[in-house]
């Protein structure tokens, strides 16, 4: 189980969090249809580092951006999603 450092609550067990989707699959509202379809329905799916959106669902409820390794499961950083991160 991952130990995820919530920027608001501190380190918490993964069982409090829910994975939502990868950061690159977020589509701007004014995106071109082709770009939107590609973002929604394809993934880079790297065997390495990627940025993911998680939510501290069973905790403070906030949305988080996490950079995590897909094999070692190491977490490089966790940021709160807000005006500066993934607006």
């Amino acid at each position, binding site marked *: 189980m991952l130990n995820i450092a919530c920027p608001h609550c501190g380190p918490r067990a993964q*069982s409090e969090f829910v994975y939502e989707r990868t950061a690159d699959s977020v589509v701007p509202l004014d995106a071109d249809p082709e770009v939107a379809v590609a973002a*929604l*329905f394809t*993934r*880079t*799916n790297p065997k390495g580092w990627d940025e993911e959106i998680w939510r501290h669902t069973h905790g403070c409820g906030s949305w988080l951006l996490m950079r995590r390794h897909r*094999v070692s*499961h190491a977490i490089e950083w966790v940021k709160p999603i807000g005006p500066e991160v993934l607006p």
Partner: protein
Amino acid sequence: MGRYSAFGLLRGAFNGQSHWQPAWRHPEPKAAYDVVIIGGGGHGLATAYYLATQHGIRNVAVLEKGYIGGGNTGRNTTIVRSNYRQEALSRMYETSLKLWQTLSDELNYNVMFSPRGALFLGHSDSDMIRLAEKGDAMRTQGVDAELLSVDQLRKVEPLLDFSRDARFPIEGGMIQWRGGTARHDAVAWGFARGADMAGVDIIQQCEVTGIVREGNRAVAVETTRGRINAGTIAICVAGHSGQVAAMAGLKLPVESQTLQAMVTEGVKPMVNTVVMSQSLHCYINQSDKGGIVFGGDPDNWPSYAQRGQPMTLEGAVAQGLALMPALSRLRMLRCWGGVTDMSFDGSPIIGPTPVDGLWLNGGWCYGGFKATPGSGWLFAHSLAHGRAHEILEPFSLDRFERGAPVDENGVGPMPNHR
């Protein structure tokens, strides 16, 4: 390398069984093949087998980076069934189930297919309505299904907790009697031996590191054992589909996640069928060795680690123990994980890709094992004819952009919501 037979075994009794030969060769890769299949799992080996035996295409190589059957083919819970509601899935999985029924004879290799019944439990009125609806849909499509009352269920699986205060009270079930299990390793070995006898080169310890393109055509693969030219390249690599497709510049609608399974110590027969549930995500069956095999949900977050998280394992076991309390006395022997390529609608992606000469057979989520012979048969037919078999047409790579997903569970396009 002769056929296996009772007579051969008997003859072997007089020469100390010294007649046994390796079941397949270990050839050096040639410079070029008509078809190069990336991935020596069940699907890749079955594709090679049917290409050689059904379509006369014998200049085929199967490239495997580890050892054959060492990926998801050796990591699943060995369940075989074709109980699907949607026509596209029903036709594809039923094609596969029909092949399972005669596979041991076909391959001259005992894959230990055991049609002991694939049972779905219902825990509420709405569960039972959904099971009845699904059973109707199956029977309309010529697939067997039987709705079971609680009294009938008691005779099929007496060890289930039928009490009214059970955690998951049992209201009935729906069973596909032709479903069951098979010996997973034997499926890989049987197809490998059959393909090898038909002339296919199975090359292990040979990892594909690149796909060479000339214009929009894939013409060769770069491997750890040198470049191999190919008329057609077929990707059958399950969890690493996205990785291999990326070598040709493709970005796939899949996300790789871990799926776990576990097995207890061996005991005398106590679970007769494959027990699954309409509302829970836990499946239980007893292997021929006697171990109780458990499976559960995927971990629902991306990972290539081939090891799972304890939360998911605990959840599956808790559900299993609630359904069948007698299992609580057993000790768990092993647990393991495989990398599944979760597609966006829960259905496989199989057919041509935008790159000429490059074909994909992946996105099987957690349902690939039961499809092994059917997938191989249909995919080989497609490769041989240069266009997707009619049964595979709904599973094309471009179905998402066309708005035509094959979504059996009706949960929408998110790989982590399966």
